[in-house]
């Protein structure tokens, strides 16, 4: 059903500068990035706040003109064929634009009208989508009564009203509680199974690992790495990480004692991370040095560590 060789989004040298053209004080949010998204893929853009993720998303959604480079979506040019592209996109923005004066179902209906879809089609689709997003019971309620997770699911239902080929999700689970996040992931996974191409930005590692077939890591407007989650972890980290926490007064002395015990060491505000191929061995070495952490945890390396290695910063900074 899906032809994985078809490139649906093709960005080359993509650049976004805010401010007037030629203005030297302009702010470069996206600085010449290249990437391709293929049909049926779940593609992630991982990065800290301000890395250029949302600017990239807005350009792909054709609501933000490209400053330089080329951006082709579904075979069309984003600059000249915006309306035609948007007709086949589903957009889940970071700030949801749900109409709080309408009911849940009315939000779907009226949004569908923007696509020129007939009422009959919309009535059928909205019932189906409310079921898909587990909102059927809330169909005739005011939007104001929805929880954060329900609102986000409504935004997703709305984004699917035109049966889009690509769904853009800008930080879909930011601000949601764990239960709401898991339900959302499960629904997004289902969409992926149905062959919908997903493009999502996130600053949550677990989200990227759960959902993305392939991802790029962005930092300061540039792509610093690209690959599957497993590839990135293998390429940029050692197998395990030893996390140590210290009593406030002892941090510096203890940290100094740990130097040289692991191939790579990252100091975070609240803990010390030692990258190693064998966490237990490193922990023994730490103890032999007379280091007495409050807590010690050995875990497998994750995308968080990839990000730390690549940027020297934690994602949630």
């Amino acid at each position: 059903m899906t032809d994985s060789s078809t490139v649906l989004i093709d960005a080359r040298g993509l650049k976004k500068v805010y401010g007037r053209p030629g203005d030297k004080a302009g702010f470069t949010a996206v600085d010449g990035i290249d990437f391709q998204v293929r049909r049926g893929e779940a593609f992630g853009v991982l990065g800290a706040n301000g890395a250029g993720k949302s600017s990239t998303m807005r350009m792909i959604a054709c609501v933000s003109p490209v400053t330089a480079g080329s951006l082709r979506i579904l075979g069309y040019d984003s600059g000249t064929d915006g309306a035609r592209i948007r007709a086949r996109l589903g957009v889940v923005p970071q700030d949801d634009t749900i109409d709080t004066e309408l009911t849940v179902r009315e939000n779907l209906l009226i949004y569908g009208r923007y696509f020129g879809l007939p009422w009959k089609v919309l009535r059928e689709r909205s019932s189906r989508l409310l079921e898909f997003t587990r909102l059927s019971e809330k169909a005739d309620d005011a939007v104001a009564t929805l929880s954060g997770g329900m609102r986000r699911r409504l935004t997703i239902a709305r984004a699917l009203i035109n049966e889009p080929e690509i769904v853009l999700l800008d930080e879909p689970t930011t601000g949601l509680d764990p239960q709401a996040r898991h339900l959302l992931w499960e629904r997004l996974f289902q969409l992926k199974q149905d062959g919908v191409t997903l493009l999502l930005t996130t600053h949550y590692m677990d989200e990227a690992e759960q959902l993305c077939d392939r991802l790029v890591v962005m930092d300061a407007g540039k792509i610093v790495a690209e690959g599957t989650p497993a590839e990135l972890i293998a390429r940029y980290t050692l197998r395990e990480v030893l996390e140590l926490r210290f009593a406030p007064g002892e941090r510096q002395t203890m940290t100094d004692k740990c130097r040289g015990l692991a191939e790579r060491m990252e100091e975070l505000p609240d803990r010390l991370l030692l990258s190693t191929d064998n966490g237990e061995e490193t922990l023994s070495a730490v103890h032999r040095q007379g280091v007495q952490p409050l807590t010690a945890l050995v875990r497998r390396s994750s995308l968080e560590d990839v990000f730390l290695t690549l940027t020297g910063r934690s994602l949630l900074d």
Partner: protein
Amino acid sequence: MDTLARAFSAPAFRELGYWLFRYRRTWRGSIVISIGNPLLFLTALGLGLGTLVDREDSAYLHGHSYLTFILPGILIAGVMQTAFLEASGPVMQSALPRGSYRAAASTPLEPTGILYGHLMYWTLRATQNAVLFVCVSMFFGTVDPARAPLLVLIAVLVAVAFAAPAAAWAVTVSRPSQINAMFRFVVLPLYMFSGTFFPIEQLPVPLQWVAWATPLWHGVDLGRTVALGTATPYGVLVHIGYLSVMVVAGLYVARRTYRRKLYV
């Protein structure tokens, strides 16, 4: 039929559809206001103030009763005020990051379609207000039924002439206080000093010049001269020309400000 169906599925009509869909919730209240408003004015200014004014013949009123004189003024000034209010606050709100314009902009609609759709809505609302106002006035015998349709057309022209520039400006605004300031320092003085309640010939000459330059005076004078049967072809042309320039200039600027705001 097919062409008609296609025309109505044009992007601007989809945006109009959104506003009409929302209007379903408030239309009853809005009709009560549209009828109540002229009733209040007619009672207070006709039976109240008018009785006082009409006690002595004023040359400025050219033999008309005060009520007959101010009625077109109140209609036009009221339409202007409503047009400003509907094209400022809601436009600002809609253009905010969570606003309805943002939702529409992520669909095939372009900023121009969004603008035209919303403008059609204001036009319909102004038509509704003007028709009801004129009907109430005819009931009181203060408007000649033969001239009533013309008065409605003029009111709608004035509404668009104010809504277009108001929207062009409001889409760039991000704080409600700016809209309040504009209302207090521009719209209300216009309402008071554009000949709505008194002939501007009563003002000192320098102020008369100011009044002639203001857009609302052109609307009020056009409405009043047509309603009282004193219109001259030259006056009508100047007034319609002035208001049309406002429509065209307002739309010209609004198309740009909408695009700049929605496509960052």
